[in-house]
């Protein structure tokens, strides 16, 4: 990183004193059909040079809007009042032309979606050079800007930067695009970087890379960073200070350690308690925050969190509590009238949350007590293969390659058991699911449902077997037909399978109650429900035919953390009451650890490690599993700062052209550290799945335990 010295001024520019950014009493509102939405209501904060401020909150809490206000990027219909001072200069009221001189030069932004943040028709190098030329056009020549773009790409860790600068955004992977966006953000040595959910759209392994890169960017530029996220884990190790937002206001601010260890606002407590922990082996009680954030059009008086708060008293409804200093510290402030009582509880952090919110560990199912071998096999995959042809040509199609989406995977699921299937996007998880749900004869290998091989099915039998298997999808918005009432949605599978009208009318309200919704809401449409409620409706539909196996495709990843906990708890209860078996596909390993009994890790269409969940998480054998686990942030600043992170280099290779031998070797840190003769084994021989411990198999020639949590 020698180039950085030439590129950047010394960190912490001495010319500027005091905070880089000072926001005071900021209000933002938008027009809507139902009235004005008060998106931000009196927000104040400041960021010092070189400081990282994390802003955390659920969707709709106003965290993104407040940052867009700083950038001056809100739509014209927004009404803004208050004060935003950047290096002592007021930004509100300036024209767009004036702001453009500051934007990208002194303040820069990293957006959530790197694909839409880059223009598809220009090369990445040109776009970075443009960022430089726009602001320093007079003093920097085109050639110098292009050269600097390459240096910046190199700085953000893009291999072969000179070559790659000539590539177009679509030729970059998601992680590389986000790197390019960050390169653009630091191109002019800004004093403030605003990162709006910079890692949400990325895989965990890439997320770790990007977070590390942001840290580097901060070191070289000395800028203050505002990082906006909904994930308390992401900011734990990265941020210095934290601000928790709720309903357009800050409800708690303070040093990261203080907030994680002594949260003093019930909302923060709930958020902390609702995250499944990767580092907790025994069953943990997850705290669901009931209800949903209030509508910001007409807030009733009093604390906006009061309707969802377990500690609510009458006084909460009279006036909105201001931010007050807690624990005698001027740095830690919370907006709650009962902070003293929260401080008085004995336990700390997440445990206090479980205590105050009254969360309990869900009991295990009866069937789970029967030894695994004696239980019936619900689903069995044996060497499943799915390939796609890559065709070229318009008139005469010719096959130019094959994508090996799923390349011989085997596992079984027994009654009352949850198998978690994890892996990066593009590893073949979804293809596997679709193959199982399609119930068609696979291209290779075998799928058996309840002992019946699907290859031998006729259409009548296939239709019958669909009763025993159902699916819950990821996106609660897309999984329910917006034109059907909830009643019709839940009744549909029963109508298809010929249930009588009376039976359907009896069962639908039953199912609603089962998933924790009121039967009176049956005549409403999906649009009137929140994400969490819709996911419950999706679960009710999946349970309508009393299936033995429920396939869950990332069922909670589209939900806010506080809602997520409620749905996870529901899934666990249902499993325990109804003795269901789950195939749980997820990329969030913390959720998998919480809910799964066994876990299978997929990489490029193969299962590289499978076994009992605690054994795999506590003693991972395969380097990929180790890297995956180490990439997941733990919502505990102290632990998180001490952890050593294995950063995987590069991206997932193309499944059309997988590496020879062990498919992981191109990114493997273990492979890189081996002597050449051992490396040859990795290159030439594909590692078989070998038993490592009781119910624990891994596919690595040089498997060894490495603790990463």
């Amino acid at each position, binding site marked *: 990183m020698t180039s950085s010295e030439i590129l950047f001024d010394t960190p912490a520019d001495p010319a500027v004193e005091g905070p880089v950014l000072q926001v005071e009493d900021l209000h933002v509102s938008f027009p809507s059909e139902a009235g004005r939405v008060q998106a931000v209501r009196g927000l104040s904060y400041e960021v010092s040079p070189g400081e990282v401020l994390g802003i955390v909150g659920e969707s709709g809490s106003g965290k993104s809007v407040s940052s867009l206000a700083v950038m001056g990027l809100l739509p014209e219909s927004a009404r803004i009042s208050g004060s935003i001072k950047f290096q002592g200069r007021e930004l509100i009221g300036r024209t767009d032309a004036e702001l453009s001189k500051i934007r990208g030069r002194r303040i820069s932004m990293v957006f959530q979606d790197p694909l839409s943040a880059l223009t598809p028709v220009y090369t990445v190098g040109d776009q970075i050079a443009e960022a430089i030329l726009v602001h320093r056009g007079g003093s920097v020549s085109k050639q110098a800007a292009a050269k600097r773009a390459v240096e910046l790409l190199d700085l953000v860790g893009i291999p072969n930067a000179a070559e790659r600068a000539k590539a177009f955004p679509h030729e970059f992977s998601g992680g590389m695009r986000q790197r390019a966006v960050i390169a653009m953000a630091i191109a002019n040595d800004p004093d403030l970087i605003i990162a709006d959910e910079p890692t949400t759209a990325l895989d965990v392994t890439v997320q770790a890379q990007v977070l590390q890169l942001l840290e580097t960017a901060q070191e070289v530029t000395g800028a203050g960073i505002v990082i906006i996220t909904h994930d308390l884990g992401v900011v734990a190790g990265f941020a210095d200070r934290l601000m928790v937002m709720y309903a357009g206001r800050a409800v708690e601010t303070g040093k990261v350690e203080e907030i994680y260890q002594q949260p003093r606002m019930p909302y923060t407590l709930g958020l902390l308690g609702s995250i499944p922990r990767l580092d907790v082996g025994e069953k943990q009680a997850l705290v669901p925050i*009931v209800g949903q954030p209030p509508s910001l059009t007409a807030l009733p008086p009093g604390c906006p969190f009061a309707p969802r708060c377990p500690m609510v008293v009458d006084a909460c409804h009279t006036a909105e509590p201001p931010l007050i200093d807690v624990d005698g510290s001027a740095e830690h402030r919370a907006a709650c009238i009962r902070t003293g009582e929260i401080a008085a509880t004995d336990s700390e952090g997440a445990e206090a949350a479980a205590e105050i919110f009254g*969360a309990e560990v869900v009991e295990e199912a009866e069937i789970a007590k029967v030894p695994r071998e004696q239980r019936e096999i619900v689903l069995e995959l044996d060497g499943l293969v799915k390939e796609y042809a890559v065709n070229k040509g318009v008139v005469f199609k010719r096959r130019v390659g094959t994508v090996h989406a799923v390349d011989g995977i085997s596992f079984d699921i027994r009654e009352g058991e949850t198998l978690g299937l994890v892996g990066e996007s593009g590893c073949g998880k979804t293809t596997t699911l679709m193959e199982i749900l399609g119930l068609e004869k696979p291209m290779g290998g075998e799928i058996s449902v309840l002992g019946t091989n699907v290859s031998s099915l006729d259409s009548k039998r296939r239709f019958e077997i669909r009763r025993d298997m159902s*699916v819950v999808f990821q996106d609660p918005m897309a999984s329910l037909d917006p034109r059907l009432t909830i009643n019709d949605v839940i009744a549909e599978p029963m109508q298809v399978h010929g249930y009588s009208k009376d039976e359907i009318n009896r069962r639908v309200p039953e199912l609603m109650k089962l998933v924790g919704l009121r039967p009176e809401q049956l005549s*409403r449409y999906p649009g009137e429900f929140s994400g969490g409620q819709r996911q419950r409706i999706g679960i009710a539909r999946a349970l309508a035919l009393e299936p033995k196996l429920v396939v869950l495709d990332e069922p909670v990843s589209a939900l806010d953390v506080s809602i997520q906990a409620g749905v996870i708890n529901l899934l666990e*209860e249902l499993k325990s009451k109804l003795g269901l078996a789950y195939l749980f596909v997820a990329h969030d390993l913390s959720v998998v650890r919480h809910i799964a009994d066994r876990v299978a890790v997929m990489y490029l269409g193969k299962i590289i490690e499978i076994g009992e969940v605690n054994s795999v998480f506590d003693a991972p054998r395969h380097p990929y599993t180790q890297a995956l686990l180490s990439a997941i942030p733990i919502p505990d600043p102290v632990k998180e700062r001490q952890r050593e992170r294995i950063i995987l280099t590069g991206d997932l290779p193309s499944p059309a052209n997988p590496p020879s031998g062990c498919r992981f070797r191109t990114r493997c840190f273990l492979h890189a550290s081996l002597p050449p003769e051992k490396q040859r084994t990795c290159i030439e021989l594909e590692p078989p799945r070998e038993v490592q411990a009781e119910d624990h198999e891994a596919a690595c020639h040089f498997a060894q335990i490495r603790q990463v949590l």
Partner: protein
Amino acid sequence: MTVILNEGDSAGTAGAAQGSPVDAAPEPDKAMTRGRLVLIRFMRNRLALIGLIIIVAMYLLAFVGPLLSQWSYEDRDYSAFLQPPYADHIFGTDNIGTDMFAQTMRGLQKSLIIGLLVALISTTVAAIVGATAGYFLGVADKALMWVVDLLLVLPSFLIIAILSPWFRGKSWWLLVLMLAAFQWMITARIVRGMTLTLKEREFVKAARFMGQPARTIIAKHIVPNMASLLIIDATINVATAVLAETGLSYFGFGVQSPDVSLGTLIGNFAQSATTFPWLFLFPAGFLVVFVLAVNWVGDGLRDALDPTSTRVRRKEKKDTKEKAA
């Protein structure tokens, strides 16, 4: 599976089970169903509302008007040739003494009914063909899209003109079918594209995995989700069909005498437009007003059904500015 969770026994679902007190927020929206919202947004658009009133009024007039008049479109008043409008003949008379009001009403009737039927038939065909091609893909898609492309390249006006001697004296239904046959292709292509995206939506997949047969999926999930497109399309198609019919009739290929339509009237009296303006102005005026009204309604429907439409927001801004002033 008759297990019902006791609402109190689970921390996880207790809150949501009680429902209302915790999700107090969406309650005010309860009355705001989609249908109501669309209606409110439509009603707010003044032009669209006027358009709707005009269309309803025209259909009423076309069918009720002739009953109130003492003349039929075939009657001749030998005491009045080429009379400008007066009490007995409110739209005047033509050179053979036919009452222009009766003729215009008869023409309007014919044009409107043809327009309505053509729009209904062509939109229905488009929905069925487009959804079938998009859902099944493969051979069905290839074959149907081949037909669509073929019909698109054929000059429809010419073909109807060539065929017109053959359906001379036959029912006007043939004309409706001919017009509809050449009007559904572009919509079918749009419907096919939308089906391709809808097919990937999870609720369609869910229906497939529960064993729902394909035709039910199309009828229950795919077509209703395109309703806004189809409604708008049908509306605009009415205007297009009326224009096509008048165009054909103007050249003598459409509605055949002794029957009349707006097109035949305009065609017959185009030469008299400057000398005896009432002969031309009444049928032409009705045509223009009708097509204009349909387009207003179409615009209004599009804005009301499209949640991203900016018209309402602009309106709100204007309102708040007025209030502030």
